[in-house]
């Protein structure tokens, strides 16, 4: 239930990577590749984060919003659900779900401020309509668990209190929302992977602590590899590359 991950809808809805990496037929027809699809989602995660900074909501709300957005695109095409409307609307809905409601007019104001491109122009009415469509697309499952809570508990449990380790692992967790990991893995495993990477990077040996955990370290290492691969392959992403992905979306089928 609501506070127990193992009985939650979040746990029951976890997907295999093959199920997440599916470009919807409508988008595929326009020539959108899996790479394009992932890039747009990443770009929209950034968009949500930027908006959130302006309207001043916490990281947790951002994380929930990004999760909603990613869940939507496991079921709906970008052709029908424009990412540039879905992203702010997910933030709008997540803010309500996380009890820090943000007014739609405030979002619209900051959207205009952030983007002059009229493809981003949406009005309050559009957000309100999309809110309902997103509720449906999410099948009304709104509770999302995040790695942050586990992360603090785990760091504490491992006796890690040096700031650089803590900051690095938090930053890594933030970056995991640029990927679809939250749809695939239980959040505490994502947190562990981030701690693992941080410990290797900072040359901090906490192997003994890991071994005591009743966790499948292979899974943790696989998640870590995915995160490292992501950093590796996304060092050189340019705005131009993102624009190419979006331009395919604009094509008439």
């Amino acid at each position, binding site marked *: *239930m*609501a506070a*127990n991950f193992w009985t939650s809808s979040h746990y029951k809805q976890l997907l295999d990577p093959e199920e997440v990496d599916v470009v919807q037929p409508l988008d595929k027809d326009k020539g959108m590749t899996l790479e394009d699809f992932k890039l747009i989602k990443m770009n929209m995660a950034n968009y949500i984060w930027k908006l959130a900074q302006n309207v001043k909501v916490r990281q947790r709300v951002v994380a929930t919003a990004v999760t909603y957005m990613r869940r939507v695109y496991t079921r709906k095409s970008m052709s029908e659900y424009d990412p540039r409307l879905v992203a702010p609307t997910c933030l709008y809905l997540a803010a309500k779900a996380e009890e820090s409601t943000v007014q739609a007019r405030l979002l619209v104001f900051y959207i205009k401020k952030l983007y002059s491109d009229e493809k981003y122009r949406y009005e309050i009415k559009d957000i309100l309509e999309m809110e309902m469509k997103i509720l449906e697309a999410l099948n009304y499952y709104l*509770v999302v668990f995040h790695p942050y809570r586990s992360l603090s508990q785990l760091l504490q449990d491992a006796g890690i209190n040096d700031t650089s380790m803590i900051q690095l692992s938090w930053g890594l967790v933030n970056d995991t929302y640029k990927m679809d990991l939250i749809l695939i893995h239980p959040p505490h495993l994502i947190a562990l992977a981030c701690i693992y990477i941080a410990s290797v990077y900072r040359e901090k040996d906490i192997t003994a602590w890991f071994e005591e955990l*009743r966790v499948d370290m292979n899974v943790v290492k696989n998640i870590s590899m995915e995160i490292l691969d992501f950093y590796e392959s996304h060092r050189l992403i340019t705005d131009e590359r993102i624009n190419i992905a979006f331009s395919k979306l604009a094509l008439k089928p």
Partner: protein
Amino acid sequence: MGDGNATTNNRSVSNSNNNEKPEWLQQYNLIGKIGEGTYGLVFLAKTKSPANRGKSIAIKKFKQSKDGDGVSPTAIREIMLLREISHENVVKLVNVHINHADMSLYLAFDYAEHDLYEIIRHHRDKGSHCINQYTVKSLLWQLLNGLNYLHSNWIIHRDLKPSNILVMGEGDEHGVVKIADFGLARIYQAPLKPLSDNGVVVTIWYRAPELLLGAKHYTSAVDMWAVGCIFAELLTLKPLFQGAEAKSTPNPFQLDQLDKIFKVLGHPTLEKWPTLANLPHWQSDLQHIQGHKYENTGLHNVVHLSPKSAPYDLLSKMLEYDPRKRITAAQALEHEYFRIEPLPGRNALVPSQPGEKVINYPTRPVDTNTDFEGTTSLQPPQPVSSGNAVSGGMPGGHGVANRSASRPMQIGMPRMQPQVMATYNMAQAGMGGAMNPAGIPMPRGVAAQPHQQQHLRRKDPPGMGSGYPPQQKSRRQ
């Protein structure tokens, strides 16, 4: 939820004129309106599908919020929680629908014919007979059982009151208690803001003393206080602490309510409740609070129980001033009261003794002249089907409010805020609903308790966080 059938029919709806129901609504026969509140309306309907033909469903319709801010956060919170929880003693959300044409949202629940408000009222007005012991004990046990489930999942209900405790009418689940109305409920594990930041909670009569004294951080113990008040009300048929609500400011200091409590339980003391000193109103309003001196009337006199009896012992533990010492739902279920005859059962409404008369509680009034749009027809009102047609009245509970228009007045509580009152009058075409009598902004707080949810401790069985809910206790029959 819909599970496939929640598809909305944008096209069909927008093309249709107003007399036509959205396609998904056509799977139900609308019987009529059974309640309303600030959020919208509640309807009684029956399913048409062959599998469940005739099954009664309560449909709560949320209006688009007036401030132009989409789906109301209350609706979001209620859906969010109800989508995750499942327990025999918690109301079951069977479907959610969205009508894109008018941006309204519908929640469909299993329908419950009765609620504790109506059951208590029936005994008070009609029979003037007490509710029999077996029924009181079974209702209380099931209420605690549902609450234990919620609390072990870190959900505080925050608005428990008799009208939110539903009881199923005839059928498979006859006499089974269902906790309803989660519009104010919340998960308290990871609050983003102190509860006190966003308005209200809890009908004043059932409000725990720590809230009345301005506590900012509160816990599941507030629900247990409310259960204590409800327990006493089941025994005496009268609200235990009937304070008059002060409404001048958003978070007024409810002195009268506190006074009613002190009159029965005596003043709290720092010895018995050490953290009392930290509560805002205890410090700032000390003179008012201690203005009246009461002889401790004695709770046992009010509820007519021997101070040595098991029910009295349980009740007094629920009405413990210090929230940290107050009995929890899990502890209450283990109390001796539930181990002595008569033992609690699943059907709280069957007669306890063979040969005893079955009480026919009235069914919920249904306004058959109102359609799903909330439009009341101009035809002369037909007699409200008083019974069998609607053998599943809708609990006033599903909504905040529901229930007969006269209710708040009748109990002598002028408690509606002016603008709420306006809506209420306007909307009460049919049967009206008692506005959420608690609809007054109130402080809320949050349990600051740390706990682990996905935390993997070494000792845990693999794959289990320590937050795994305790086994539900098997029900005693």
